[in-house]
């Protein structure tokens, strides 16, 4: 049979809806977080970042929320469009990670229906 581990968590939304993609991290020392978007056949692209001295940051149609108490990060996409369909990764780093190495989550696939 198929391995569950091969399947990405998937979020399916309708065009125009708001999307929320979640990410949990385990390192309480992590102090910088990034969201990346990866479209099919392309490398990951930077979307938005946030440092641990903030709990919210907004970009164009995107908002990142950070809850350090429960070690949780979310990406909110307003008025989701078909072009937003992609895999979204969170990444984190901490002061003791050495030479700026990021640790990536497994990713969430966002599917937007017209």
């Amino acid at each position, binding site marked *: 049979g198929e391995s569950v581990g091969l399947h990405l968590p998937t979020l399916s939304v309708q065009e125009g809806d708001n999307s929320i993609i979640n990410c949990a991290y385990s390192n309480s020392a992590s102090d910088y977080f*990034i969201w990346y978007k990866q479209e099919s056949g392309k*490398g*990951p692209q*930077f979307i938005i970042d946030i440092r641990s001295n903030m709990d919210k940051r907004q970009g164009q149609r995107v908002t990142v929320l950070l809850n350090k108490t429960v070690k949780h990060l979310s990406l909110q996409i307003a008025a989701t469009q078909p072009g937003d369909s992609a895999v979204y990764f969170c990444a984190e780093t901490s002061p003791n990670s050495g030479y*700026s*190495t990021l640790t*990536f*989550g497994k990713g969430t696939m966002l599917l937007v229906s017209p």
Partner: protein
Amino acid sequence: DVKVTQSSRYLVKRTGEKVFLECVQDMDHENMFWYRQDPGLGLRLIYFSYDVKMKEKGDIPEGYSVSREKKERFSLILESASTNQTSMYLCASSDRGNEKLFFGSGTQLSVL
């Protein structure tokens, strides 16, 4: 805009072959990275370099080596390719003291 260019989009190699994956960045970044990406496992760091001729092992360096003879170029070498090295390989770069990575488009390597 930062451009990270990987020399090949698709590669097919035979088991035992020596394979070179090339990456070039045009923004004078000090740091360069090689990741592999596999379904269900996400991105895993193979090697990185923070300066010319410097290299550091990542999480999964076994079976790989790297070369950084020039600042803009970072090569990943598979000394003797094996089928379990079939994967998407992603190169990335970043500026010193800046954690934000810029990625290339990836090389899909198939080892038969």
